[in-house]
């Protein structure tokens, strides 16, 4: 093994310039790929994090029929069974957020439109998403509050402000009529246009009273102490709750559409990366091919001396691996400080792009991810490519006829 390593390593430096150029091409490809993937992964991570923190949470417990038919009739009873579960696993749960959310008509003196009434426990909700930060006028809700918070867009449409009164009219639990008159206590900017033009927040107790759904929730959002343990915790809950009544969903199931979209996007990026790697592969292949062709007579000598084909094939494969490994390691070493810098100092966006991103409730920056997988996935890909390329000289070594190359 020592001999093969020694030969491969020294062969690499027979033509220093050529080897360095090839290594540099691998290096820059890896560096570019890492930066690109880090940026993409960073954006996805940020998007998922925002969605999980502001919308779905890591785990949701719902009524068994709610996922297929999100109706007020398919709400779950926030009763003893759930409380027992929460108590039992309190060490694994950071906090939980109960919500009751359903459609209702919202009316002011001159306007009526549909909207989403969301009943929340204010103190728990702020732990989850710090909604209070988004207040633009009035005061935030308190436990058992009789007033409502209006999303800013909706308040503009309805021409309602703090201190005004609105009327809600909708369908309650099991076909009852839900009706009520509520003072607007505050205005909140929800950033995402779809939410900002539709949502009304009220205290959970008020919402349960309004919909006639005492002690009922559309979803119980659970944030685990360790988000990495989400799936395990969800599995525990599924095992312990009566599946006839409850459905336990993780954020991956709740954001399935978003994740599918991301996978499509990643596939597009992969195609671009493949083109980049194809260029690199040809460069590497060219070097390996030249190294092969200029040493045919030397191979003849080695065979004559009794060096087995398997040993020489190993030398050739190692040469390809060495070039790639040096390029990959150098690329990763260079990428680490750059990615780390941008992870903590994301690139700020300006102009229309920043505005568009802000409209969706995200910070107008290009975030980077320094997850180890960003680095090693590119390294492994290039190494796999070099193994593939290294197979060519191996094939040639096994095909060479000694008498053809001896002189």
């Amino acid at each position, binding site marked *: 093994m020592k001999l093969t390593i020694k030969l491969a390593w020294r*062969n690499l430096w*027979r033509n220093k310039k050529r080897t360095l150029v090839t290594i540099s091409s691998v290096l820059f490809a890896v560096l570019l790929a890492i930066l690109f993937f880090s940026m993409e992964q960073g954006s996805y991570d940020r998007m998922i994090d925002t969605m999980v923190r502001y919308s779905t949470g890591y785990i949701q417990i719902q009524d068994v029929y709610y996922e297929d038919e999100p109706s007020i009739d398919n709400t779950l009873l926030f009763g003893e069974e759930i409380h027992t579960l929460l108590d039992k696993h309190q060490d694994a749960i950071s906090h939980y957020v109960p919500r009751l959310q359903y459609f209702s008509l919202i009316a002011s003196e001159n306007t009526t439109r549909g909207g989403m009434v969301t009943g929340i426990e204010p103190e728990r909700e702020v732990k989850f998403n710090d909604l209070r930060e988004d207040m633009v006028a009035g005061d935030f809700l308190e436990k058992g509050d009789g007033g409502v918070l209006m999303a800013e867009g909706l308040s503009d449409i309805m021409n309602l402000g703090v201190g005004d009164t609105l009327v809600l009219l909708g369908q309650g639990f099991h076909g009852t009529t839900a009706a009520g008159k509520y003072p607007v206590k505050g205005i909140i900017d929800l950033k995402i246009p779809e939410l900002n033009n539709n949502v009304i927040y009220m205290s959970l107790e008020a919402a349960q009273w309004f919909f006639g759904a005492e002690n009922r929730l559309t979803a119980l959002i659970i944030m685990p102490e360790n988000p990495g343990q989400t799936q395990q915790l969800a599995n525990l809950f599924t095992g312990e709750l009566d599946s006839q009544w409850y459905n336990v969903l993780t954020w991956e199931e709740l954001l399935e559409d978003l994740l599918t979209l991301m996978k499509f996007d990643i596939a597009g990026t992969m195609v671009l990366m493949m083109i980049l790697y194809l260029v690199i592969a040809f460069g590497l292949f060219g070097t390996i091919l030249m190294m092969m062709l200029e040493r045919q007579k030397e191979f003849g000598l080695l065979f*004559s*001396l009794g060096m*087995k084909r398997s040993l020489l094939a190993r030398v050739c494969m190692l040469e390809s691996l060495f070039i790639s490994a040096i390029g990959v390691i150098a690329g990763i070493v260079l990428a680490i400080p750059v990615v780390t810098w941008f992870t903590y100092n994301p690139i700020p966006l300006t102009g229309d792009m920043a505005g568009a991103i802000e409209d969706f409730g995200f910070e107008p920056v290009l975030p980077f991810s320094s997850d180890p997988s960003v680095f090693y996935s590119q390294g492994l890909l290039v190494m796999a490519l070099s193994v593939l390329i290294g197979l060519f000289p191996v094939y040639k070594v096994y095909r060479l006829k000694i008498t053809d190359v001896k002189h």
Partner: protein
Amino acid sequence: MKTVIKTTNLEKVYNSSVAPVKAVNQVNLEFKEGEFTAIVGPSGSGKTTFLNLIGGLDKPTRGNVIIDDTDISSMKESQLFDFRLKHIGFVFQAYNLIPVLTAVENVSFVMLLQNRPKEEMEKRAKEMLEQVGLSDKINVRPNKLSGGQQQRVAVARALASKPDFVLADEPTANLDTESAFNLLDIMSKLNKEENITLIFSTHDQRVIDRARRVITLVDGAVSKDEYFDK
């Protein structure tokens, strides 16, 4: 004296597109231990092909090559690799050394493939380099050595593993007179001291003059086999 190599009815036919060419034709020869033999003949007479056949680098079309009572003509390729490694030393006209290895590493190379103990290997390699007058070039790579010095390292390598015989394919062809004589002196000395059988293919009269046996090939067949007292 012990017979090291014996060929019986040895033939090598190359199938050219026009007509088959008999590069080696019905060669029956025996080489005894310690012989210093020159295979001579005009270009295309089959010298190199003959060396390739007895060196196990090529397979005969017909006939046999028996080395130390082993018929190598029917061996599989992997067996031939092992056989060459253990029994035969080679010196070629050019491309003789591995450019990325130093002189001492080149000399040790065959022993390394034979998995000899490191200390024994190093000792023998240095000893051989001393014998060929290159003890001051131990850690020098081939590109820093002259053509003659490179051939001397190649001879040291061929003999270091103490093979049954050494095949040298026109080893002096690229050397100036002084280097050629120097190389031949060393080979003659080692032939006598280590009792190693040496077989040269050559055009070079300087080599022929040193040989104790001269075999002349014409059109692949032996036309003369002469012994000289030297």
